[in-house]
């Protein structure tokens, strides 16, 4: 799975869990910048809603060289 596929699926999951995705308009026609999304608290809360403890997961993600890969196992 490419980074763009991971972030697209992650956004979809977060959206199903109630994330307001209007902030994505700021990226316009540009591709998503994964880190600009992953480290938003509203995204993290929605993405890890079912798993709980979103802050813990965010902390784990930030320690990785490629935080996006941490998201992959929750898709």
């Amino acid at each position, binding site marked *: 799975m490419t980074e763009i596929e991971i972030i697209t699926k992650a956004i979809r999951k977060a959206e199903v869990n109630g994330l307001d995705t209007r902030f994505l308009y700021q990226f316009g026609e540009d591709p998503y*910048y994964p880190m600009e999304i*992953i*480290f938003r608290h509203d995204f993290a809360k929605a993405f890890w809603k079912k798993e709980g403890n979103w802050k813990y997961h965010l902390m784990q993600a*930030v320690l990785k060289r490629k935080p996006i890969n941490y998201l992959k196992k929750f898709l």
Partner: protein
Amino acid sequence: MNSDLILLDSVKMAIDNNLYLDGQKVIDASANDGCLFLKPANSNTFQAVPIYQFLFSHNFCKAFFGTLVVCPLCGSDHVEIRDNDSTELDWECNDCKYDNSRAGSNLKLAYQWLYRMREMAASGDPISYLKGFI
């Protein structure tokens, strides 16, 4: 102090401490309207950089926050390391008073940049977080 200024001051501090981007030393930076531009040593032009991608990179955090070891509980660098015969490090934090050997745990010291990077992620507002360090 607006966020462009905080960002720029932070990046310039990191540049003073040897900041690298894609293996190249960064020699200059500018920030405008929420966008960050960096100039690597091998280039005559500034490159636009996604801000969070940059702020949460290990290179930036190491250069900006430093590579000292700190207490993993309170983040203080006032840590006293004691000699002992074991392979585990004995240490005591002079600020929160946690004593690793007395607590009988093997809690390890943390790198300052890792500790701060996690705090920055937890803050939800990385640029305001940086303000406390410039």
